[in-house]
């Protein structure tokens, strides 16, 4: 049975990202799933002089347990929201900088929404995507695959497009089972 860690990052309980999260969980039926909801568990995103706390150790244990990591979040200011960036800073930084890697993770999937267009995101340098492909993936293994599942210009899209993206998120999740 494949083991999937889902990380959800959005300040609101009811929002489009939550709908994506629900469909992802539906798609993962049959897999062994663990969920980290950063806002709900009150994760502290700010770095501090003493970096260790219970959250960080537990999250690293989960990262050593899973075969696939699935991130669900909105893209803000061309990248991961500060809450999720703080998770990367505090939980991942040692692995990114050459420490013990999460070699068990074969695939990282980012499912994210953007207020701006694909063009604007390209001009901005696609920092969020590169955080996943060039920082998180190399901190796992050489063969770790990444998939970028993104919806652009969400504020100007109609219900049909939003609904199709939810279907896509569920299909992507199913492919991990």
């Amino acid at each position, binding site marked *: 049975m494949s083991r999937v860690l889902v990380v959800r990052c*959005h*300040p*609101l*309980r009811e*929002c489009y990202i939550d709908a994506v999260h629900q469909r992802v969980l539906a798609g993962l039926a049959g897999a062994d799933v663990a969920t980290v909801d950063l*806002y709900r568990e009150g994760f502290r*995103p*700010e*770095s*501090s*002089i003493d970096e260790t706390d219970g959250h960080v150790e537990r999250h690293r244990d989960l990262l050593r347990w899973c075969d696939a990591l699935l991130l669900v979040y909105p893209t*803000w*200011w*061309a*990248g*991961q*929201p*500060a*809450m999720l*960036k*703080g998770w*990367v*800073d505090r939980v*991942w*930084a040692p692995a*990114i*900088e050459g420490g013990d890697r999460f070699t068990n993770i074969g695939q990282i999937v980012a499912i994210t929404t953007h207020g*701006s267009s694909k063009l*604007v995101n390209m*001009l*901005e*340098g696609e*920092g*969020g995507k*590169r*955080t996943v492909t*060039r*920082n998180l993936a190399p901190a796992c293994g050489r063969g770790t695959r990444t998939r970028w599942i993104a919806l652009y210009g969400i*504020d*100007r899209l109609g219900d049909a497009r939003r609904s199709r993206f939810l279907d896509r998120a569920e299909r992507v999740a199913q492919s991990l089972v």
Partner: protein
Amino acid sequence: MRALLLVVDPDPASYTHELARRARSGLAAAGNEVTVVDLHAIGFAAAMSPVEREAYHGDEPLVSEQVAAQAALVTTADALVVVYPSIASGLPAILKGWFERVLVPGVGFGFNAQGKVRPALTDIRHIVGIATYREPRWKVAVRNDNGRRTLTRAFRMSCGLQARSRWFGCHEPTSSAGRDEFADRVEREMTGLS
């Protein structure tokens, strides 16, 4: 000229804070008015709260007094200077959160009649990044310097074409003499900013 200098490092005795002091000296020596904000010292929260997210697209997106004070500082600034240690090729979360929470609609950008984003910080003429990296220059280039791009591309879009950016990176491995030299250079270059 008014400069807003944001310094990010939880350790007040760090090299980051030394660089911030040197940058401030340089800016002040050139006759600029400098406001220094130490995000860790003021207890700035990185994460946008649920209340802030609910208010984001409304008439009053600045919910907290602390955040509103930051918005007042940046809207009256001619230069934004950030001093930070790069983490995972990007801005530390607390600084990323400053952009998300302070530069809300009406502060960092506005929307035109078609709903397209338009710059709002049109007074900003200088964007300056002073960053320390725990990796050599080539490795940062391979990974993509996302922190720098957040400032020089995404933030610059909030300012407009009048804004020019300057970037100073101190890369590992570096010696103590190399650090001193870099700090000297930062101070000297800031003296020329007006």
